[in-house]
């Protein structure tokens, strides 16, 4: 017990954290002069380090946060390390681009220091994702993990940082706020040396990011309608939805919130949902779900990321042990209906509609309540309906005949793979796409007189930056060769992922 009352005018740790930003600035200045080969070497090492620890951090994250499913987190962690780097390895956000026809030379200019907020729901995947994006674009990054996942995230950031620096990255280009608190985060967000905030998390934190006065990329919440129309392959739709809804116990913001099904195929869908591992509740059971899981019409936060069987137990339902999703039918999409709002646990609303027009209206109504700008899903074989649905619902990505959790996140579609879903103007965000590396770099455009008589210069083979200071603070070392142990782990992880993906994409 302290004799002296240590009152702080600024939040504890703020001065230290501001120092982290300044250290990051020094690192960013140096990093911005790296060429593509150096950057690739660093990413090879960091992606490998992330993959090597994917399983350990998946276990640790579930243990620390009490949310999600270890196996699914392994998939996400690998998707956000090795797979992400595989996807972008041949992209170049580092070298000049020459547009001789337009007489424009483009020079990439990193943001500088990224202040990244990561959520408790997808802690490691988001840390991996943002760190890799920062490195691809030669930015320094200071990660502020959600306090609920701070230990595992801090450890992961240190591992990635060590790997990066050992592969030649500037010392201090990846750092972590070890003891995050709301006042401390606000202080860092408003710090003038923060170049851009990338906020993934709750609405409060995203709004604070935009209030900070600094450039910010923050995204809004989701509330995904899954429309199954009369033309759908109902059995396939049921499987996709149940797989997606049960993935990591629904804690991706892209998970399906409610099924909207055309009356004509409703009974068949309910049967198929049961076959796929969902338990479809009776009206009495729905009442119990409402009472126990949504007291006062609000989703219980302590149940986020819990499994369907745990939820059933909480609600006093008897369900088979293999149950992966609880389906709760309701009658009308209105703002006060909790079953029509975002649910970060495997409870899926279900509402029947008489026809396609009513289905689209119901989806629109869901997104009026919450989740605008985020994601929607449709299961249909009719192109006209798919297009009308896409044009009607207020979201910026619609996935078709695929589970939305990994569909909108770009894992099962060709959207950019991401842990940060831009919700655009509908969702009060500056970003309307899946966050990807190009969003973290600006380009200086060197433009010549358009008059045909004025020639353009030859820039091929020239380097815009000289790396005078080759020396990061820590002595550079070759990345550690993969040990037999990590090879074994990698094999195991690969096998697990292949199995899981096979199950997810059963065609």
């Amino acid at each position, binding site marked *: 017990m302290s*004799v*002296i*009352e*240590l*009152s*702080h*005018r*600024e939040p504890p740790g703020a*001065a*230290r954290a501001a*120092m*982290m930003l*300044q*250290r990051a*600035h*020094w*690192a960013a*200045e*140096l990093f911005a002069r790296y060429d593509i080969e150096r950057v690739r070497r660093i990413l090879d090492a960091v992606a490998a380090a992330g993959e090597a620890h994917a399983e350990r951090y998946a276990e640790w994250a579930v243990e620390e946060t009490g949310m999600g499913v270890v196996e699914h987190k392994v998939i996400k962690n690998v998707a956000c390390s090795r797979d992400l780097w595989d996807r972008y390895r041949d992209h170049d956000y580092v070298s000049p681009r020459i547009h001789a026809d337009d007489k424009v030379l483009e020079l990439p200019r990193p943001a500088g220091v990224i202040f990244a907020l990561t959520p408790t729901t997808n802690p490691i995947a988001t840390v991996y994702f943002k760190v890799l994006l920062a490195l691809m674009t030669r930015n320094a990054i200071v990660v502020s993990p959600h306090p609920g996942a701070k230990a595992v995230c801090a450890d992961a950031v240190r591992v990635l940082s060590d790997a990066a620096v050992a592969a030649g990255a500037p*010392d*201090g280009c990846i750092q972590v706020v070890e003891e995050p608190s709301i006042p401390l985060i606000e202080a860092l967000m408003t710090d003038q*040396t923060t170049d851009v905030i990338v906020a993934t998390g709750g609405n409060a934190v995203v709004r604070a990011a935009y209030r900070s006065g600094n450039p910010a990329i923050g995204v809004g919440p989701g509330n995904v309608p899954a429309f199954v129309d009369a033309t759908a392959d109902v059995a396939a739709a049921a499987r996709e939805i149940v797989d997606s809804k049960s993935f990591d116990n629904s804690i991706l913001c892209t998970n399906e919130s409610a099924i909207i099904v055309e009356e004509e195929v409703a009974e068949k869908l309910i049967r198929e949902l049961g076959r796929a591992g969902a338990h479809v509740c009776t009206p009495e059971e729905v009442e119990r779900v409402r009472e126990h899981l949504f007291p006062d019409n609000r989703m219980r936060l302590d149940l986020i990321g819990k499994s369907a069987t745990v939820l059933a137990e909480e609600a006093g339902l008897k369900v088979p042990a293999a149950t992966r999703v609880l389906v709760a039918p309701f009658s009308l999409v209105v703002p006060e209906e909790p079953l029509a709002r975002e649910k970060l646990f495997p409870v899926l609303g279900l509402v029947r509609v008489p026809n396609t027009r009513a289905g689209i209206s119901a989806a629109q109504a869901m997104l009026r309540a919450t989740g605008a700008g985020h994601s929607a899903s449709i299961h249909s074989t009719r192109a006209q309906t798919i297009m009308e649905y896409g044009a009607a619902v207020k979201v910026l990505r619609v996935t078709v005949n695929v589970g939305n959790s990994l569909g909108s996140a770009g894992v099962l579609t060709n959207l950019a793979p991401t842990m940060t879903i831009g919700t655009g103007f509908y969702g009060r965000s500056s970003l309307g796409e899946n966050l990807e590396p190009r969003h973290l770099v600006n380009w200086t455009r060197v433009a010549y007189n358009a008059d045909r008589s004025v020639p353009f210069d030859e820039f091929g083979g020239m380097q815009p930056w000289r790396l*005078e*200071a080759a*020396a990061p*603070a820590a002595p550079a070392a070759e990345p550690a060769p993969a040990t037999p142990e990590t090879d074994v782990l990698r094999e195991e992880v690969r096998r697990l992922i292949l199995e899981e993906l096979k199950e997810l994409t059963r065609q």
Partner: protein
Amino acid sequence: MYDYGFFSYESKEDMLERSRAFWNPDKTDFWQDAGIDLVIDRREGYLFWDMAGRRLIDLHLNGGTYNLGHRNPELIATLEQAMQHFDIGNHHFPALARTALAEALVKSASPNMRRVIYGSGGGEAIDIALKTARHTKQRRKIVSIIKAYHGHTGVAVGTGDERFSKLFLSDHPEEFVQVPFNDLNAMEDALRARDVAAVIMETIPATYGFPLPAPGYLQAVKRLCEEYDTLYIADEVQTGLMRTGEMWGISKSGVEPDIMVIGKGITGGMYPIACTVVSEECSAWLKEDGFGHISTGGGAELGCVVSLKVLEICGRPEVRSMVHYIAERFQQGLRQIQEIYPDWFVGIRQDGVVMGLEFNHPVGAKIVMKHLYAHGVWAIFSTLDPRILQFKPGILLGPELVDEILDRTEVAIGKAYAEVRSGSREAVPA
């Protein structure tokens, strides 16, 4: 009218007049004659403003006192909080903050260090070191480096240039031997008679313009001390607290001193104290007669609390990283300037952010100092070698301010060169 609340001046001229009348006429005039009409007013970070409102970047830092910047907000907050509970304390009794700081300092220093004795300033801490050495070895002789500077108090003044001891009839040449820096033969000659209590050395002599110790020199001096049964006192006042990239500059050489003196930056310019850290062997008088050296303000507890914070800040990994970046950037930038003026800007001495810039003129640094001042940078020449400019940036600088310093320095060095070449120097007060 310059109203500072507690006092006021009619004008800058009025201030300077009263400074001559009531404070120090020679010093006041010295700077006016040198073209440095500076009266420091507001201060913040690595900047301060002259009374007339001119902004200057501080590269003098009072020899590292403002290592963490002027009025560092963390140190202000620390001192304010400490004042809610402490004052300077009572120097006779076991004291809370003195003990806590002593423990922290001992843990930060080389493993042979055991205890801390406090002074109120660096000079007193040097006096304590020298008196401790004399008690330990029961000999009077002290060996120091020619052109050394260890302060102006009663004993310390004997180690330095005779300019300062003779003025006050305080020179004792029979007790104080001086040898050239980097000269091991001279050092061995001075120690051979085994009648020397201690060798005292700044790890990099500041006032002499930071000549760097030759590789192996410090280690060899330490070996000679051991061979001839003499103590090694490391004056770390200007090289401590991460300024060389390590907490204590001496540790980079692997030398374990018998006594280490710490001052200036340890309190960040907020509440001065100084510290003498000693080994077990040198702790003897603290067991024999603990009242042997009494200092009411020595280790004032408010200063101790601030010092604990300074140590904590300096020990952060962020700081270590930044010192490296700052030193690297200065090295590159200064080399680029040197490439422009190779015959004028002839040398860069650098260890971390401890730097001496050498100019090819007997008082070259004075001329550069004047032009730097005119271009918004305050850095001081080396009193004992005016060819060398002491260039001492802080350890928390950001890249933007470092680039600004380099821009200003390049112009000032160029203008100083032009002045020297045109021979117009005599026409300008210098």
